[in-house]
């Protein structure tokens, strides 16, 4: 096959090679392409470019194989080489861009986009999580879309100038600050875990990667708004208990993707949904109400993915329920000797629900916190049942959940 391309006045130092490459792409190795053009250095350029790209140039005396000539009009002729075909000979598609991810992501696909044609070679990616059933949930693309659509700006989403926060009674303000201090350390754990899982996830599971990234970004905002609320009146932050930190830190060391997500999102953040609702109900000022409302909206997505993914894994491998059970029991045993929830946090919750130091109010606050714990337990049991645990086992496991809530 023969073809012709005209470069007009363009040299190969000005992009002319793009026209040649485009014309050559339609030919097979051995086919000829006549090149016409007016650039004074065209033949010099062509000789150098063809040599570099594995083509032969038919231009008077410059035949590498000893033949000679050009076309009948004296125009240079490129004989297409096989370099491009050889380069892509062993290439393969990294799954389908629009389709669901493959059951197993090949490490050799590396950082290639899902659906890309991947040239063979290059370093394999050292991702630990490359099996779809270990990371996936069908709801992940929709949850990511929802997350992307729901991003909010801490600077404007909260009315920081709302004056009532600065006029709260000191004790109530201290209770708010203590709760915020506690929330920040929880959110720091909740940021680190998806970030850590993300770093070991094969990027073929694009939507999960995006979702975990948005989850980490959510937690970054939560840390910001909780910190800002705690500092709103200019006082010191509250306390951080050793037991609370021990409980949180036990989440960081969980090596398994599904188990880590289960402990964090299903049990921990699931429990937090009730806590944040409670805080919204009893918030003594609009800023506190705003920050917990915004966080609650984000956390609901995190919980939805955690539940959906864990259920997906259990459907693929029902015996995985045993692994999850062991993880809960192991964490319970680890935390058996710790104090659990910071007593000052518990007391702060009571005071916030009470609204004053009146004995009757404190009594109501105490009851409200106990009602909160009952709701937390009920929520955990419901989510465990969705994942596949029988009701009795769900109740048993819920009872083993950390007293620190997260």
């Amino acid at each position, binding site marked *: 096959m023969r073809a012709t391309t005209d470069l007009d006045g363009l*040299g*190969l*130092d*000005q992009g002319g090679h793009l026209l040649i490459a485009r014309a050559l792409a339609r030919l097979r190795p051995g086919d000829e392409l006549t090149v016409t053009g007016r650039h*004074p*250095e065209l033949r*010099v*350029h062509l*000789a*150098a*470019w063809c*040599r*570099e*790209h*594995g083509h032969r*140039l038919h231009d008077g*005396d*410059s*035949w*590498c194989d000893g033949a000679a000539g050009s076309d009948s009009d004296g125009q240079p002729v490129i004989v297409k*080489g*096989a*370099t491009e075909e*050889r*380069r892509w*000979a*062993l290439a393969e598609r990294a799954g389908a861009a629009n389709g669901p991810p493959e059951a197993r992501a090949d490490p050799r696909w590396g950082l290639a986009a899902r659906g890309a044609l991947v*040239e*063979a*070679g*290059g370093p394999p990616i050292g991702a630990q999580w490359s099996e779809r059933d270990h990371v996936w949930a069908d709801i992940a693309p929709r949850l990511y879309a929802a997350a992307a659509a729901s991003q909010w700006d801490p600077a404007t989403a909260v009315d920081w100038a709302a004056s009532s926060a600065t006029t709260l009674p000191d004790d109530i303000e201290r209770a708010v600050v203590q709760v915020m201090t506690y929330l920040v350390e929880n959110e720091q754990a909740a940021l680190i875990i998806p970030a850590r899982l993300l770093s070991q996830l094969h990027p073929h599971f694009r939507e999960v990667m995006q979702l975990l990234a948005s989850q980490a970004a959510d937690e970054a905002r939560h840390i910001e708004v909780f910190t800002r609320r705690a500092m709103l009146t200019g006082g010191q932050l509250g306390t951080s208990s050793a037991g609370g930190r021990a409980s949180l830190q036990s989440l960081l060391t969980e090596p398994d993707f599904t188990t880590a997500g289960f402990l964090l999102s299903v049990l921990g953040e699931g429990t937090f949904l009730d806590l944040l609702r409670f805080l919204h109900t009893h918030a003594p000022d609009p800023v506190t109400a705003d920050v917990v409302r915004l966080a609650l909206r984000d956390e609901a997505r995190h919980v939805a993915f955690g539940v959906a993914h864990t259920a997906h894994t259990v459907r693929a491998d029902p015996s995985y329920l045993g692994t999850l059970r062991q993880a809960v029991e192991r964490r319970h045993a680890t935390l058996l000797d710790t104090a659990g929830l910071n007593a000052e946090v518990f007391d702060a919750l009571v005071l916030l629900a009470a609204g004053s130091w009146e004995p009757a109010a404190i009594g109501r606050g105490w009851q409200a916190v106990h009602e909160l714990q009952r709701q937390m337990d009920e929520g955990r049991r419901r989510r465990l049942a969705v994942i596949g645990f029988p009701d009795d086992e769900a109740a048993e496991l819920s009872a083993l959940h950390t007293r620190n809530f997260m």
Partner: protein
Amino acid sequence: MSGLLLGAVAYDPKVVTIWDGFRAWLRGEGLDFDYILYSNYERQVEDLVAGRIGVAWNSPLAWVRAHRLASAAGVTLTPVTMRDTDCDLRSVVVVRADSPAQSPRDLRGRVVATGAVDSPQATLIPLSLLRAAGLHPAAEAAAVTGAAAGAGADPGAEVRVRRFDIGVGLHGDHIGGERDAARALFAIDAADRVDAACMIDANLLLFTREGTLPSGAVRVLAQTPPYDHCTMTAGPGASESDAARFGQLLLGMDYADPALRPLLDLEGLKQWQPPRLSGYAQLERAVDESGFYDAKGEIGAGDYRP
């Protein structure tokens, strides 16, 4: 130690990557192979002819010298392979687009920039082209003092050569001298500016693409006929069977192989091909004209110190 020992010149750190990779692949194919690196081609060639290495990855100038040394010593050298990119190169003499020069002869009395003293493509061969046009290029200092290389020549045909000696001993493998010669075409200070610059065709394209030379601001005044570049040469230190097996394995390297492709790209080829010796006549002539080596391969260029 047994096996085949190759010498290569370390003109760039990538040479280690290339030959480490090739060594692993060749050993995987059952060839007992190793390599050593030289800081310049002269010592590599001497070791090839003396049998201290089995094969040498030779520049074209190294081939010319090896051939002469071997003939003088009664030693046989065997060409093994060359790269597809070693065939049919041309050097060009470039001037500014608005230069009044229309032919090489118009460069008489002018300053021509070249690469390093031992660069076949940016010094030796293009200067030979100027000689063929009736000019007598001489190093700038010599021209100024009147001690021209072409004794008795028409002084009016003198061309002053400004050499950019970067990477001397690497036979032009280092691009720095060539790039500096190109830059000198547009030097801001008139004293630094040259009237023409010599380079290989591929570097003309590279320099205009990368912006070293403004696109459209230069013109090719003259170009050489095509010539050949590097060649793999086996000497008395290689057994016939090792040299043959080595050549077969190189020829069999497939660009489709993902383990080899990055190495071939680094080495600047798509495919090894059988050697040919017909492409070195211009360089032989240039070497003789300039006295760079004598007929026995001894270094004649007095200002050449690799």
